[in-house]
């Protein structure tokens, strides 16, 4: 049809203005047809296999020739077998390929037992978040809990039971190991069987231990924690008759006085504390608590203080007593116990800021019943007692939570009890020592000689996930399941029991510790089945826990409901506190010499007590204060450093008595003079490629007979040792007295801050400094529909770094190692900038999470020569990894320097290609490309989550909303400082923050138009001016 039409139209046209031949000029029909068909007849025939081969056209022949050559080429080429892809024969219920499943469980990374939600893809866990329904942590989980997933896939987990031989450790069958150990246990006779463990939080595990004790009556259980609340416990026992000290309503406190207490950093349930604390600092309700921190080392809590004062830890008792006396003198309370103390003298002697102390006094008086004084775990008993008295006298008991109280299933063993164990070991009275997932050789003070004494015990069994110092001295090493491969339950406070369920079958030939003990209790190695503990747990719940719950639904229903939710609520009574019993309280002061050096040993923010030392993500997580990674150090004040004549990175020798340690020094702004702070958890040995040789083992400075506190030693000395040791920090350290650099973050309006008083007077004071938006000669792109943006409330950001780890896990961010951090090549997409202003003694600290700002006029985009970084119509600045050639021009032109470059194949670069081991690849988020060497990368605003939400919305046939997407950092932030959503979604919560009167953009004057809004921090101080 159409052919003819064209021929006709040509024929009808009398005057062709061009022609190629006379036939064409004279409109020969055949020629016209031929002209219309591009190829001559026969050339374009379809291939007909029935046709004779001789009838084949030239074109067909060439096609066949090419195809056969290609086939031959492919057939003969070296085909790399990438393994089989086998479809599910029977598809497991609930698994849809490409869609994640979530399971509620309980985190066992520390003794706080937060509820978690584990995201699995095709049966493998890839991400951990807080369980949003869990009453304690309410959807949030700390960095350690997030990074715990790396422990599951750690290539260095023990995969087989091991038995010590003359040459080392040999593989052994479970059955053989079990029967050997059962024999040893049975033959213990009157000798002790010692079980050493961390805090017991599981009621069912406690039941297992009781059964074990019943079976082997000489058993004694020693539970310990390197960092614990024992002093607080005993203080409460003395004051109120029960060691179950209360939880605190941080959210209701108007004034908080933290005495050497890092309740936002490492003490108690940090996630819960942070959330409740930040609830009390809300710009929308304009309610602000006031945080006073008096401490020796600069801590996470100290960084967030409205008023901070430096004080040596041993002076805290006198401070509280002086405070009591002064309040008594002012008539605010009536107490005669502290009449020997004078606050004025104390302030003078310890060089405290008089004005701040007066503010504190007035605030405590004005906020009776609405203030809380909190002493840290490191403080000895008498400080806690004095604090209890003061809280009681001020009526601050109101802020003790009565709805829920902490529960100790089994009290921790005291140092004396541990000493009894070592004495028995010395006297050959111990037949078997069982280490249940703990590391006493590393944790116990060296003067207990625990390591040496282990050799006197005939059978030492260590149950552990990975090799450690204790396992090295064991006859048997039994590999344990990871948290995510195990069943369990946990009760750390009244009102709730959490349940733990496995989300993946054991990756290796491992068992969970409860099953191992149950097998031994049965005295037959054949008892073991994979469901052994599962059955026991269920039975224990049915017989012991279910009745106490007084539930009206039947057990099975409750059980599966609780498994689904991750916890079961119990209606236990809360806690009530009688009046304090003042008689017989020990209120004598430990005398000390204020000129002597005090050593403070603290828990590491990153690796805890060393349990997480083999976790690269945590090792590389910058210290929240110093921003140092991969090391611990001796933090001292700049005055002390001057006196010692040392600089950052200089090696010093710290000694307490005859215990010595050489480690590098770090000059920490805000540290108390003559105080050395060292974090524990480093200097691990035999613990894998990542942990071994990282940092310094300061546990060697611990004493089993502490005079003041187990973690504070008042008789330390420090001398310059000579030599240097480079500390890898993600942020440069600048001299405080350099006028060119000082307060640059304020001069450049990177950090914009105000005070609550100023805000109340003039709520738009931030907007006054904001530059006007410049006119553009071009019409800017109109974002009429969806446009993604973020708002970060700096009032709530505490600088903990949980968001960094969450981002690492979500986005497959590699660990680069200390050498690369030293070269300033860390790969974290999100960093928390920390700025100091003021003097090095008394700095004001500002935190600022910094990530890609997804600028509307992104300077990175126009300089990329190959358009590898582009802008999406919904306002995202995108990276096209495949197109990127790695010129790094984008990074140079990024004013925020948030782009990260793969200088190496970082997964290969780490020692021994550790990160390329096949098991670690299971951990990757399949929705996020694993970047190769030479490619630029950066924060994507979790574009994979946006796309998932988009397809979900499309499936439902509704438009996507800003609230449909939560970024990984937002999800992780314990204080909900991060808000994400649609800039054009006018009725959303996010919109309020995006257009907040305290909102500003960083480097706004560059006119790059960022899409991350920062809500200026307000300090709750008594003046309008900072």
């Amino acid at each position, binding site marked *: 049809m159409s052919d003819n039409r064209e021929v006709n139209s040509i024929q009808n046209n009398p005057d062709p203005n061009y022609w190629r031949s006379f036939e064409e000029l004279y409109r020969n029909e055949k020629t016209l047809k031929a002209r219309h068909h591009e190829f001559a007849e026969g050339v374009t025939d379809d291939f007909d296999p029935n046709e004779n081969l001789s009838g084949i056209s030239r074109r067909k022949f060439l096609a066949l020739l090419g195809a056969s050559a290609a086939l031959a080429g492919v057939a003969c080429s070296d085909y790399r077998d990438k393994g089989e892809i086998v479809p599910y024969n029977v598809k497991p219920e609930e698994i849809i390929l490409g869609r994640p499943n979530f399971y509620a469980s309980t985190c066992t990374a520390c003794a706080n037992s937060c509820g978690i939600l584990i995201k699995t893809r095709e049966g493998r866990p890839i991400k951990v978040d807080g369980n949003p329904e869990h009453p304690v942590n309410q959807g949030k989980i700390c960095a350690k809990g997030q990074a715990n997933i790396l422990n599951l896939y750690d290539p260095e987990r023990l995969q087989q039971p091991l038995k010590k031989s003359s040459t080392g450790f040999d593989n052994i069958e479970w059955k053989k190991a079990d029967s050997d150990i059962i024999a040893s246990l049975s033959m213990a006779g009157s000798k002790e069987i010692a079980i050493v463990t961390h805090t017991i939080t599981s009621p069912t595990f406690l039941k297992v231990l009781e059964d074990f004790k019943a079976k082997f009556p000489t058993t004694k259980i020693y539970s310990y924690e390197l960092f614990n609340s024992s002093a607080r416990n005993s203080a409460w026992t003395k004051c109120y008759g029960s060691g179950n000290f209360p939880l605190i309503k941080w959210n209701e406190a108007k004034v908080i006085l933290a005495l050497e207490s890092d309740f936002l950093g490492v003490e108690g349930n940090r996630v819960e504390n942070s959330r409740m604390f930040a609830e009390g600092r809300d710009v929308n309700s304009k309610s602000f608590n006031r945080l006073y921190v008096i401490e020796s080392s600069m801590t996470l809590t100290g960084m967030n203080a409205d008023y901070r004062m430096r004080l040596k830890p041993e002076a805290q008792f006198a401070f509280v007593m002086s405070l009591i006396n002064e309040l008594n003198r002012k008539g605010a309370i009536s107490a005669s116990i502290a009449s020997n103390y004078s606050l004025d003298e104390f302030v003078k002697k310890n060089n405290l800021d008089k004005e701040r102390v007066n503010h504190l006094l007035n605030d405590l008086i004005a906020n009776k019943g609405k203030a809380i004084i909190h002493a840290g775990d490191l403080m000895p008993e008498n400080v806690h007692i004095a604090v209890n008295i003061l809280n009681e006298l001020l009526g601050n008991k109101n802020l003790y939570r009565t709805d829920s109280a902490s529960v100790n299933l089994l009290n921790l063993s005291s140092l004396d009890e541990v000493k009894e164990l070592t004495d028995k070991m010395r006297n050959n009275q111990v037949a078997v020592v069982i280490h249940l997932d703990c590391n006493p050789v590393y944790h116990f003070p060296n003067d207990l000689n625990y390591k040496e004494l282990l050799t006197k015990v005939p059978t030492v069994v260590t149950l552990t996930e990975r090799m450690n110092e204790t396992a090295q001295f064991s006859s048997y090493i039994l590999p344990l399941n990871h948290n995510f491969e195990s069943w369990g339950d946990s009760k750390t406070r009244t009102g709730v029991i959490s349940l733990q369920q496995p989300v993946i079958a054991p990756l290796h030939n491992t068992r969970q510790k409860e099953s191992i003990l149950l097998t031994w209790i049965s005295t037959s190695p054949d008892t073991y089945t994979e469901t052994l503990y599962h059955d026991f747990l269920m039975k224990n719940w049915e017989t012991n826990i279910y009745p106490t719950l007084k539930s009206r639904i039947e057990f099975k229903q409750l059980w599966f409901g609780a498994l689904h939710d991750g916890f079961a609520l119990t209606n236990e009574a809360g806690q009530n506190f009688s009046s304090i019993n003042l008689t017989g309280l020990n209120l004598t002061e430990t005398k000390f010499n204020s000129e002597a050096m005090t050593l403070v040993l603290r828990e590491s923010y990153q690796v805890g007590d060393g349990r997480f030392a083999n976790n690269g993500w945590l090792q590389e997580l910058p210290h929240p204060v110093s921003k140092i990674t991969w090391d611990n150090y001796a933090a001292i004040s700049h005055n002390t450093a001057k006196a010692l004549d040392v600089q950052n990175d200089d090696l010093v020798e710290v000694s307490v008595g005859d215990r010595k340690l050489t480690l590098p020094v770090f000059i920490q702004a805000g540290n108390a003079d003559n105080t050395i702070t060292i974090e524990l958890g480093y200097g691990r040995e035999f613990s894998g490629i990542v942990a071994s040789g990282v940092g310094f083992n300061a546990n060697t400075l611990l004493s089993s007979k502490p005079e003041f506190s187990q973690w504070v030693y008042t008789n330390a000395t420090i001398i310059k040792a000579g030599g240097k040791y480079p500390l890898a920090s993600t*942020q*440069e350290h*600048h001299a405080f007295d350099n006028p*060119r*650099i000082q307060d*640059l*973050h304020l*001069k*450049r309006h*990177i950090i914009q801050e105000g005070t609550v008083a100023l805000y109340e007077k003039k709520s738009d004071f931030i907007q006054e400094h904001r530059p006007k938006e410049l006119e553009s000669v071009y019409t800017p792109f109109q974002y009429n529909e969806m446009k993604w943006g973020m708002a970060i409330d700096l009032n709530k950001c505490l600088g903990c770094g949980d968001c960094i780890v969450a981002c690492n896990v979500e986005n497959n961010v590699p660990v680069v190692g200390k050498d*690369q951090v030293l*070269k*300033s*090549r*860390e790969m974290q997409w999100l*960093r928390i*900038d*920390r*700025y100091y202003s003021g003097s090095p003694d008394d700095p004001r600290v500002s935190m*600022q999470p*910094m990530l890609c700002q997804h600028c509307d006029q992104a*300077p990175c985009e*126009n*300089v*990329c*020569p*190959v*358009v590898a970084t582009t802008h999406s119509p919904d306002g995202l600045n995108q990276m096209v990894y495949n*197109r*990127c*050639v*790695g*010129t*790094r*021009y984008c*990074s*140079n*032109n990024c*004013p*925020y*320097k948030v782009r*990260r*470059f*793969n*200088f*190496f*194949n970082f997964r290969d*670069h780490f020692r021994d290609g550790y990160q390329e081991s096949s098991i670690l690849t299971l951990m990757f988020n399949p929705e996020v490309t694993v970047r*190769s*060497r*030479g*490619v*630029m990368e950066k924060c994507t605003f979790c574009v994979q989550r946006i796309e998932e939400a988009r397809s979900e919305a499309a499936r439902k046939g509704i438009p996507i909303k800003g609230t449909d997407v939560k970024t990984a950092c937002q999800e992780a932030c314990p204080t909900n400082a991060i808000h994400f959503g649609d800039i054009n979604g006018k009725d959303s919560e996010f919109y309020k923050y995006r257009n907040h009167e305290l909102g500003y953009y*960083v*480097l706004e004057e*560059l006119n*790059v138009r960022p899409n991350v809004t920062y809500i200026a921090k307000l300090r709750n101080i008594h003046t309008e001016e900072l």
Partner: protein
Amino acid sequence: MHIDYSQEAPAIAGRLTISQIEELVARPLDTKPDRKYFIALSISGSLLLLGAICLGISFYYGIGLWGNNQPVGWAVPIVNFVFWVGIGHAGTLISAILFLLRQKWRTGIARFAEAMTIFAVICAGIFPIIHTGRPWLAGYLIPYPNQHSLWVNFTSPLLWDVFAVSTYFTVSLVFWYIGLIPDFATLRDRTTSKLKKTIYSIFSLGWRHSSRHWQHYEKAYMLLAGFATPLVLSVHTIVSFDFAVSILPGWHTTIFPPYFVAGAIFSGFAMVVTVLVFVRKIFNLENIITLDHLEKMNKVILATGMMVGYAYGMEFFIAWYSGVQAEQFVFINRAFGPYAWAYWIMVSCNVIFPQLFWFRKFRRSIPVMFVIVILVNVGMWFERFVITVTSLHRDFLPSSWAYYKPTFFDMGILLGSFGLFFTLVILFTKSLPVVSISEVKAVADGAQPTHRGGHHE
């Protein structure tokens, strides 16, 4: 001292006859290379090998072997690139602009300077490719039609670089070759070796020294000179855009194009003097590359050095005048921050030492000028280092600052580029006439018609 300004000094000293000139220039091509030649070649070859090995290892493991880090995305490789592009500028200036300005003294040095241009651009051209994270994808920078409909980004100065440098290289090469044609013919006529004759015959394109040839040649040469002249300005202008178009304080400066061009001529002349000092001695060309020529070049060095110095000062002034804190900080930080050492090396080498050229005695003293031009070379390398690294290492957010240290591989590749350059120079001296025979003949005494035995007015 009495100087007679009424008469131009002869471009060629020693009253050489035309055949003597030919003999002098062509002699190195007729003799076998001696021991010294091989020693020189082995030194430069070793450097080249060192660079090649460093580069090979960098390719294998990734450019993480270099010192580049998070704020300092560009460092020594880009410094080298700008440095070598700058070196190239002297050749084009001498051969094109001085030709158009009828500067006869250029004839003795033009050929060599042009050759150095080409070699320097070869050295320079390597760096933009190798400095990328994935050099095997360098083809992405070329706008070629493809099935993915992917196109390059014409707003990126790096892309302008691709065109600027490749154009520059092409034009320089053609210009150089055109100039060589009459000499190829001369060599063809002189040589007795069959092989050489064949090669020279091919490259001389049938040149017969006929008037017609000369007429066409002169016209073509002039056209190409006119064509190359804007390139002298444009190439380094575009290279400076790599920095000036960004928003980084210390880079984002409108003074960059002229400042870079002046700097390029400055460094290029210094490099030409560095090499010529040896060449005129070794090949007995003192009469063709005279002290007068060197003095004139030193004058250019003095002039451009002061332009560069002016730019240094003006940058500070504008930073202060702008009132932009970040801008002011960058310049203060350059002079007094962690890289102050580099800054003061730059200032002393580029601004202070060349001032000695105000004195005629120093301008005409070979040892003095040699020391100064070496310092200028060093100083100009540091100028690019200061611009590139000190601006990046401390930019807007103090939280992202970091110090940059080059590694062994950075330095190995830098030395390798010198190795490549000098290897090419050394090979050139033995394979092609280092001075344009035909042009020198044309400016020799008595070669041109004169009035009253004097020079043509």
